[in-house]
């Protein structure tokens, strides 16, 4: 994966065919699991009403991201380029993509039981949970590349 071009609030990433397919399949999974409700147990100041509002706001935000997720993986965004694909997004879309990827990563981690060490021994995982491990790792990998490729430019 490479940052092919960055100009005027638009990003173009060069992906291999496998990377493009993985990104599409991963974003298609959003949202992974239910929205995990926020419980501000660490702060006495957060009243029930505040928590309710926060959870409503987060649920609404997730709905918006869900709409954007569908748009982000439209086939037209992945133009053929040699043996790979050229994936184009605006800065705003890229920001939404990062949030979607991180949501997938965090919710997959929760479904794995919130392990303290994310580099866990996969052989100990029940078969039905393996997919969440894959989602968590893949999402983190894409996040890392989207962020560091930008910084390297």
């Amino acid at each position: 994966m490479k940052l092919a071009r960055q100009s005027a609030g638009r990003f173009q990433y060069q992906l291999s065919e496998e990377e493009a397919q993985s990104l599409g399949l991963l974003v298609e999974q959003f949202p992974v699991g239910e929205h995990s409700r926020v419980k501000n147990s660490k702060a006495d100041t957060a009243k029930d009403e505040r928590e309710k509002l926060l959870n409503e706001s987060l649920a609404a935000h997730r709905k918006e991201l869900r709409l954007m997720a569908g748009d982000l993986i439209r086939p037209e965004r992945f133009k053929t380029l040699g043996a790979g694909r050229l994936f184009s997004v605006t800065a705003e879309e890229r920001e939404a993509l990062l949030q979607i990827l991180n949501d997938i990563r965090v919710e997959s981690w929760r479904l794995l039981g919130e392990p303290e060490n994310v580099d866990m021994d996969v052989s100990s995982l029940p078969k039905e949970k393996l997919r969440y491990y894959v989602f968590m790792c893949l999402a983190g990998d894409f996040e890392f590349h989207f962020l560091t490729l930008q910084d390297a430019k």
Partner: protein
Amino acid sequence: MPSISEPATTPGPSVGTRSEDRLAPTYYVVCWNDPVNLMVYVTHVFMKIFGWERQKAEKHMMEVHEKGKSVLVRESAEKAEFYVHRLQGYKLQATMEPAE
């Protein structure tokens, strides 16, 4: 979560001209460590939400990573709540705590 001392660089209270401004309660916005959010992502979110330079964002990110939490800003209840909502929207664990 390890017990830690308050970070050395805590933003000062906002300056008010009216007496009620000075008396209005303020809150710390605190970000907590977790094993899943990537360091580059946390830095990115701080830069995005607070408009900080990378250096400042990385300093707070490292504080979260090494000490378990970082006090990000001190604000009025409404603003602190706004920041907590935004941080939670990015899937970071954030809370607000009374500054007094």
